[in-house]
């Protein structure tokens, strides 16, 4: 009887994890093609060094092995929330300064932006489902784009898209871990943070 009551929760985990993974893959695919058109329209080279560009969440995980499920999901959520803001800036800069007539290109960015918003929502939902509660929106304080040169805007946009692509890869990996963990923990309450 007890198991019958608890069984929907892991199912929901897995279902939600699958959806998040699917969405992350979709974003990854879209961002890959968006990157192609981005570098073409900005006259940039994909091999260009972007080390000088900061303010973009880096996907590289330094202590990946030590993060809990909640920390993983939280990191993902915070990153996508940041990308939500950054993509909005990129879109606005393209509209206002760089490619004002290229509405198809803007639509592509807009599409990725919406998917990122959806992904952030799903991650928040997953966190809530795991009993961690949705973390508060840490109001990002993006750089004032007014002080950026157009070249910096271009580099910033490229970095945002590249890191977003990396993040989607990381998210797929993280969500697999989460799914595995929720499977391992069976019907038990998955709300508690577990050390991996």
């Amino acid at each position, binding site marked *: 009887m007890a198991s019958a009551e608890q069984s929907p929760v892991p199912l929901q985990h897995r279902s939600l994890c699958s959806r998040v993974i699917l969405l992350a893959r979709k974003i990854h695919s879209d961002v890959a093609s968006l990157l192609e058109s981005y570098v073409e*329209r*900005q006259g940039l*080279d994909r091999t260009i*060094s972007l*080390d000088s560009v900061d303010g973009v969440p880096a996907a590289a995980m330094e202590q990946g092995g030590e993060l809990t499920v909640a920390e993983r999901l939280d990191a993902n959520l915070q990153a996508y929330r940041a990308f939500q803001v950054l993509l909005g800036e990129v879109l606005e800069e393209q509209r206002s300064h*760089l490619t004002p007539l290229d*509405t198809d290109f803007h639509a592509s960015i807009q599409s990725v932006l919406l998917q990122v918003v959806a992904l952030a929502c799903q991650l928040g939902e997953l966190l809530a489902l795991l009993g961690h509660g949705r973390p508060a929106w840490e109001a990002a304080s993006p750089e004032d784009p007014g002080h950026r040169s*157009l*070249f910096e805007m271009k580099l910033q946009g490229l970095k945002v898209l590249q890191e977003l692509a990396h993040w989607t890869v990381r998210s797929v990996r993280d969500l697999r871990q989460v799914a595995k963990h929720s499977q391992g923990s069976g019907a038990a309450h998955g709300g508690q943070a577990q050390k991996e």
Partner: protein
Amino acid sequence: MWDNPSLRCLLAIAFLHLLSLIYSQETGFPEEPGNLKCITHDLNRMICSWDATSSANLGLTYKICYTNSEPFSPVCTETEGKRADLPVAMGSTNIQITTLNASGTPLATETFVLPEENVSLIPFTPQILNLSADFSTYTLYLKWNDSGSVFQHELDASWQIQILYKETMETVTLINYESKLTGKDSILFWNWTSDIPLECTSYYVKIRCYINELYFTGRKEWSEWSPVRTVPEKDTKPNSAMVFPQDKVVLVGSNVTFCCLYNEGKSVKFMNYGSESYPLLRLSKWSSAIKVQNVNASIPSGTNILCSLVPDDLEGTVLFVGYAPDTPQNLNCETRTFITITCSWNPGRPTALYTKRQTKYILFERISREKVTCKVDELNEKHHCDFPVHANQKIYNFTLGASNPLGQAESSLLIDVNQRVHLETPDKFTVSTNSSTNAHLSWYIPGNFIKIRLLCQIEISNSNSEQQLNVSMAGAENSNYRARVDALHPYGTYTFRVRCSASEYFWRWSKWSEGKKLTTLEAPPARGPDIWRQRSPVGETLTVFWKPLLLSEANGIILSHEVSCYLRERMLKAYEVPVPLNSTEIKLGGNDCLISVTAKNRAGSSPPSRITSVDLPSDNVKTELAIATGNGIYISWHSDPNVTCGYTLKWCISSGSEPCSVDWEMFPSNAIDAVIKSALFQPGVRYNFSLYGCKHNGYQLLQNITGYMKELPPKVAPNFTVEETSSDSILVKWEDIPVEDCQGFLKGYILYFAKGEKGSSKTSFMEEGSPELTVKNITDLTKKSLRILDLQGKTSYRLDLRAYTVGGIGPSKDLYVVTKENSVGLIIAILIPVAVAVVLGVMTSILCYQKREWIKETFYPDIPNPENSKALQFQKNICEGNTALKTLEMNPCTPNSVEVVETRSTVLKIEDTEIISPVADSELPEDGSDPGTGSHVVVSYCPPIIEEEISSPPIDEPVGSSQVIYIDIQSMYQPQVNPEEEPEINFVTTAGYKPQMQLPINNTMKMESHAPTEEDLDKTAGYRPQANTNVWKLDSPDSPVSIQSNNENRSFGSPCSINSRQFLIPPKDYEDSPTPNNTGWSFTHFFQNKPND
């Protein structure tokens, strides 16, 4: 005496001269002043300085007394320094400088006469008040005071401005600047634009001045350089690496310098413009640059300039390259509402610049001096601008200015707003009606048109017509406009739409309003229907027909027809016949009456159509033929003077199983012909018409007419048969074609006939184009048979009969007929040759009988004389004279005798093709390859020959007997020996000529199997049969095959041998040759090999 000025002057000069003499005597003192130099900065005062040694006497002072030309009294001053400030005087100045010691005792005195030429004019050193830089435009702005107040009057001043850059202060440029000093201080401005962004390195500026005073005769020199002013530095220890210029906009084709500033400890790895790397120019230790020439238009997001630094860092900037705005083209300003004037234009060449760099447009009106900024939707490429209409202004002088960071352009247009009215599309368009012939239209046009009249065009269209109606009306403000349209057709469906323009000055029509449909109300039918009546054969009933009214006549939906029967204005009967019936039957009951028919719709009844039921009797009604016109039937008739109320032509068209539908057409009394057209008429169908004449007392049938709309060829071929045949004629009979298959009026038949076997050809005569084709045209339609004459007996003929109309020739039908044999002719054909033969036989017999002795002597002598033998003569001719038979010629041929070599063998039997001719020993090969063979026979070939065999008699025959055998050439080729039966003979004894046809193919094989005797056989073989194809080798002489070939190939079995004796009788040489190297046949080879052999 002192009052005399001249005298006083002379005395003063003398005094001074005396003084100078006194002082000059004192020269040689170290304190004596010398080397006097005077300069002036303002042409008012001058500063004089001199040299004097004062090393031993400290506390020396100098007393300077100077005298200008006036006043004469010298002015003296004392100074401790060796310089004095003196006034500048015109002409020359006498200056006496006395060196005084501390106690005031003069030590030395020197007097100078200083002419103006020795005074130098050196302006004050100018001071730069301000130096500022506009980094966006690479421009330096310089401001300084010209110190014009120093001089009392106007002067020309020249300024030199020197620009230096880099740490090493290299001169960039030196510029001269002219100004005028006005006697008071003025601030001068000057600016300079650099090729290189000012941020790239430090810039320094200094100036100096030169006063060009024409009336000053002294030296004029440049002032000292002003102190250097520096442009605020950016290349010295920048906070972070940067590339300049930042986000700059330049013209296509410009040369642009980009510099990269970087921090200490870094260096530039490369700098790229777009994807191309450029050589670095070092500006300072923290700055490098590249120079890009003739830049192309950039993409919308600009061209990137990258500066890659070591250690790993990247900086960059974006350059926008485009064009200055083009002159706005096709500027057009018009008002739609009299509230605003809308100007639109074509921007011309794209600038390749977007967003804030895109072209901005300002519309300026010169009369009102009002301007509006135009919003341009680049995405939709719409360029227009609205300017308000002013109440009391008619004329507007617009100037449209276009500007972007690279330049500006403008275009102007002067308009009278009243002449540029382009109204908005009429809105809220409604159409209504309350009658059958008119409609009310209403529409709305936004705008204030109180001052003008409007011209509106109303388009009225229905399914088959379209007309436009112009309506002029007074303008109103934001008002509805109304119009009424008359003369519409009742129950007509119309589509209305409207457009408007200014009436007085037409400029442009507005767009059409949306279309609105309207159907007018019904009205009573315009006229009564066309009617006809037909009395039944018995005459008891009368069928009344009427035609439906056209839509334009019906004025609505016809609901029914009312049929009434009047007798002397009294209505006997009335019938209401609903649609769609178009006929009704009336029982007359033996009385004739006047039939009246009216059509009814919702609005009322039509005027009645009337017709009498009376039929007048007709006599001798003829049937005439009508003429097909292709799309109608032309009918003509004779005018009848008794016909007073017109003619009626009636016909009936039947379709399928339905009863035929009666149709008619009425014509006036003076008509004599008509072309009847109907959509129901079909080509090839016969129609019957009845022409009635309307007389005062009734209708009379005048004529029947038959016709076609279009005649076609007959549908079928006539059935025809052969009734009778003889050896030279055929009687053909045919039947009529049914009327429905004629498809036209039959004009005749065409009979084709020609020799032809059944089944030999299925194509028609026309296609065959047979030369023996005979055509007979039968135009007499009453004729139903035809006899074809002059035919050959016992011959097959093909007949083809076709009918034809005006529309063409119909299909054909074939018959094959064989004429009978002509027996008389046959008999004659037999008898004549027999008779001739008999006659000839008789005559020959008689002749032979008469010449029997001569014949006997000639052909059958008792003792045959060979000389007289025809046969032998023939042979002789062949051998001697006929060069065409060289092959048969023997040389010498005359000895065609038979020489019998003495032998003990049995007598050789001469058989058909084996002609054994012993040849003398001298003709045998020298080597005598087989001399020992006693029985060999050499055969000379010269067929046909008659050989006389004189040989020892066979054992069983008496010796000395001889036999002559005559062989004709034919018999030579007769096989005499069965090769299968006597193969041995072939190899051993059958030497000599062998007909090619007789030589067995496997001869070679057999010869090979008899190898030991092969050579002998060859030696005696003579001519080798050509049929032995195995030895016909075509190999080249040098081919290995040839070399390895068998000896048997030495016999030349060439096909040409028939013409060459040499081939037929192989030379001895060949027989001796141990290694024959050519078995193939070749003349050249043959002769070449011969010497070698």
